[in-house]
């Protein structure tokens, strides 16, 4: 009887461990990664992350925290180069759309339409250059 139960107990422990690991991952920004993977969050051409649809409170807070940090980094670079924050943000937007967005992920162009990246590269806004 004891011998029969052992695998069940082990499986329960493994499941518990996985659950804890999953929760820990979600706490350290894993929720954003998961949302990016399922397309509910995506990169925007304006250099920030955005929501495709309405996010949960927790996800919204995490994405907004990232966007605030991004804005801080853009502001710093803009001051160094003597350009506007918007110019820096848009350039980063070109960069992320070109190099960071993977196939199957959502992205937003200046036309305000969310699209899902396919096998082809994203058609970048004209100001991105080629």
């Amino acid at each position, binding site marked *: 009887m004891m011998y029969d139960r052992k695998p069940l107990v082990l499986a329960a422990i493994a499941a518990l461990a996985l659950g804890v690991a999953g929760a820990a991952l979600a706490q350290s920004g894993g929720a954003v990664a998961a949302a990016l993977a399922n397309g509910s969050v995506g990169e925007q051409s304006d250099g920030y992350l955005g929501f495709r649809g309405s996010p949960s409170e927790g996800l919204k807070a995490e994405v907004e925290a990232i966007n605030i940090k991004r804005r801080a980094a853009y502001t710093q670079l803009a001051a160094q180069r003597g350009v506007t924050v918007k*110019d820096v943000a848009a350039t980063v937007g070109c960069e992320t759309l070109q190099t960071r967005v993977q196939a199957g992920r959502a992205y937003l162009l200046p036309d305000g339409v969310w699209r899902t990246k396919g096998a082809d590269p994203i058609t970048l806004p004209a100001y991105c250059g080629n």
Partner: protein
Amino acid sequence: MTDGRSDANPVGMKKAALLLVTLTAALAAGCVQIQAPDKPIEINLNVNIKQEVVLSLKKDAADLVTNNPELFPQ
């Protein structure tokens, strides 16, 4: 003679007509036709980013992304 003349005239007229048609066609092809758009012209004010500014910042932007991976989760 009169028959010959009346025959010669239509040939000349045909040539002239052909020339006229060719000329008209050439003129029409060379014409730039401007048509007023039926929709109002929309100017998207959100896209006022200059390409040269973007190009000058391109390397900085790429560095910013690679140096701050926590701000650019994948």
